[in-house]
């Protein structure tokens, strides 16, 4: 339930943000900023939607944990 509310919030906020920023950015010919802005807003909406639909978003913490799993033994010996 909360996730859906957040997805709605993110969608509405992004639409308002786009309506303000995109005309301004294209008028000033800041094409790089425009590209980065659109990609990031799209990513934001996508993540919020996936979360509200109950899909598993790949967790970056898992990735980092996997990267550093070989040194787990060293940390264990530090904790004893």
């Amino acid at each position, binding site marked *: 339930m909360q996730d859906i509310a*957040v997805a709605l919030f*993110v969608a509405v906020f992004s639409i308002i943000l786009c309506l303000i920023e995109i005309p301004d*950015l294209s008028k000033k010919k800041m094409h790089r900023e425009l590209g980065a802005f659109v990609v990031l807003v799209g990513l934001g909406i996508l993540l919020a939607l996936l979360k509200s639909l109950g899909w598993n978003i790949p967790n970056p913490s898992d990735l980092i944990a996997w990267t550093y799993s070989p040194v787990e033994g060293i*940390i264990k010996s*530090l904790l004893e």
Partner: protein
Amino acid sequence: MSETKITSRQIISLTAGVTTGGSVLVIGALIASVAKQDAWIGSLLTILFGIPVIWIYLFLGRRFPRMNLVGMSRELLGKWFGTIVAGSFLFLLLQMSYHIPWYMGDFMTSRIIPETPHYVIKALYIAAMSIAILYGLEALARASEIFIMIASVLFVFVMVMVAPNAKIENLQPVLENGLIPVLKSSAILSCFLSFMTISMLMIYPAHLDDSKEGGKSFLKGYFLGGGITCISILMSVLALGWAITANSRFPVFRLANLINVGIVFSRIEIIVFVIWVLTQFILSTVFFYGFIIGFSQLLKLKDHKRIVLPLALILLTMSEVVFPDVAYQEHWIVYTWVPYIFTHGFVLPVFLLVVYWVKKRVLKMDIGDNQGQK
């Protein structure tokens, strides 16, 4: 780069905030479980061991007075490899900028306002972070000066109020298990105290007029933050004993629970929470700011403020995803965060330093811009 300049006094408060924010509330438990009653010796040693680490950061900063860490690694390691290294560092900054809202939501909903949805707390917190960055670095730096002042005064107040509960027997016997557990605990604490200041390398040389004066302030801020953490660990062990400290999730919060002078002064543990929020806010905003600056530098954006709000939306969702539960977080913070920050806060700057020396001394290359010096 940009013309944003901050004073060296503000470097003190930013560094102190970064140093304190990562450690003051949570980390005492971990340190006490490793070093037992000698945790305070461990935290003193940590401050000492941190000095060479800070020296490396300052050395790099002085050689490249108009660059941040992204610029340095690209200058030293070449365009492609440098970009990969910088990207990996930026990923760490991004990680931290949504970990802290998670902590905020977790703490608020478990201790203070349990019926509020944590999304609301996180959204407000992230909104505050974004507003701080939209106002610019100067505003953040000035705010941090005030925050550190408030936090230090409140901290001294809490520690004085707790002092009557301190029992010196809790520290005895000193060094019961030898020096090894103490050294181990200070190795762990370094990962939450000294190495955190690597994020300041996104601000420290580039936005400062006098990098020499700034270096001194960097150290002063580090000592202030480290001192606060050290005293909080010492008082937790003194007043609670190491066993209770090691078993509570938020030892300093529990410590403040002890304060009970008549009916007037009770339940002032919320003051500890205020200290934590203020320093944590500096920490997370510095990390988020560093990420945005570095990211727009990699993408060659002219105006970094344009991508703050889209990123804030991503932070809001990711702060929910990042730790599914408390058990995961406690395991992650020990087994993954410790080596993760070690590689970026220690190995990376040492590597840059070695490359710098090799290029300068062995290959006799003209490297580093010293026009800003002397």
